[in-house]
């Protein structure tokens, strides 16, 4: 059966490197390679590739798992996202989407293709957030004192009737806003500031996507809540303090929620 000289295929060489050959064939290939330096060099180069990959990326497995990836955290965040959305969207049509527990989750799971396009808005908004919140002298193009002008201007550029939320009630002053390039054309970007200098931003862009549930994405320093309502994607970004960000999101949401407002 085991013939030292039986032809060895390239597939077998890969299987040999990856430990996928039965033991007897393993030995036969090893012996064959001893007589075929060219192929042996090829095999050695594949092993070297594998070693480099493991050396370069292997260490990640020993790092402590960050808090946000702990299962308890993932579960509670997921539930909280559902709950707060349900509370916020009580008046809105979207409620039907979430209420109903498992059915709601399945409906969300079924539209698996949509969230990725949806996620683009959040990543764009977070990029803008990180870029502009550190600006001291030029954080915005239009100052918050010109709210009416800014609203009109940005609405015109987006081709969408925008509202710039007033967040004074939760202690946030409107710093101002600017126009940004977004995934679908123009995007509007407003910045708010707390007395202690914490900054939150709101990003709005047209989105030809179905309405979504509220989603949260958090890094170590910044986090965002985002959703789509009535063909507009909204992203609220701020420091990674989930509760605080949720409060800001709720306040902003209540002012921009067209579906709900129309019904009132």
């Amino acid at each position, binding site marked *: 059966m085991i013939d030292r000289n039986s032809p060895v295929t*390239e*597939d077998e060489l*890969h*299987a040999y490197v*990856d430990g*996928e050959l039965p033991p007897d064939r393993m030995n036969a290939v090893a012996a064959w390679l001893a007589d075929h330096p060219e192929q042996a060099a090829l095999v050695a*180069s*594949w092993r070297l*590739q*594998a070693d*480099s*990959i*493991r*050396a*370069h*990326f*292997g260490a*990640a*497995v*020993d*790092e402590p*798992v*960050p808090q*946000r*990836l702990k*299962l308890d955290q*993932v*579960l509670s*965040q*997921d539930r909280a996202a559902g709950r707060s959305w349900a509370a916020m969207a009580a008046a809105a049509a979207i409620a039907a989407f979430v209420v109903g527990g*498992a059915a709601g*989750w399945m409906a*969300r*799971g079924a539209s*698996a*293709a949509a*969230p*990725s*396009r949806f*996620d*683009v808005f959040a990543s764009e908004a977070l990029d803008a957030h990180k870029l502009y919140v550190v600006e001291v002298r030029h954080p915005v193009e239009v100052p918050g004192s010109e709210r009416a002008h800014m609203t009109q201007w940005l609405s015109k550029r987006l081709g969408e009737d925008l509202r710039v939320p007033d967040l004074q009630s939760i202690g946030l002053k409107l710093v101002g806003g600017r126009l940004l390039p977004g*995934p679908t054309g123009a995007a509007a970007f407003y910045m708010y500031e707390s007395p202690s200098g914490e900054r939150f931003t709101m990003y709005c862009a047209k989105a030809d996507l179905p309405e979504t549930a509220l989603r949260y*994405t958090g*890094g*170590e320093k910044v986090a965002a809540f985002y959703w789509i309502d009535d063909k507009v994607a909204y992203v609220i970004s701020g420091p990674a303090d989930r509760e605080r960000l949720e409060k800001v999101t709720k306040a902003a949401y209540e002012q921009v929620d067209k579906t709900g407002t129309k019904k009132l």
Partner: protein
Amino acid sequence: MATFRQNVETTIPALRRYARALTRDTDIADDLVQDTLVRALRSEHLFHGGDVRGWLYTILTNLNRNRLRSLARRPALSPIEDNDAPDLAGPEAGGRDIERALATLVDDQRNALLLVVLEGLSYREVAEVQGVPIGTVMSRLARARVQIKNYLDGARPALRRVK
């Protein structure tokens, strides 16, 4: 139920490693793992025994594909230092070379190679993750290895072969 979650939990470090190699960015990688975990936990009731680990790799691989597709709809932006030839010297040069070489691979080939080499999955398991026959996994691996070798040998990734 407890065992399902335990199995998920013990796989998290490996998922982070795989995601990091796929995305080459710690934050994006962890976002991907987080999304994977959310999906997995939501679909817990759909899981009827079997290999939790393979299932998680499948979810992560698919989510990453969606991510790459949505990136592809935006103008192609690649970090400036990511271009052209391998570095000739310097510490970490070897590591960055392999990173760049991986970046030149077609998505499916990169997934297959990383699942086998980094994650230690068998060909059969990779076939399940990718939803293709084992033969396809093997040809993806073979092409990935040729491409990486060419890249590291200094031959530019000439023409990317489709098929």
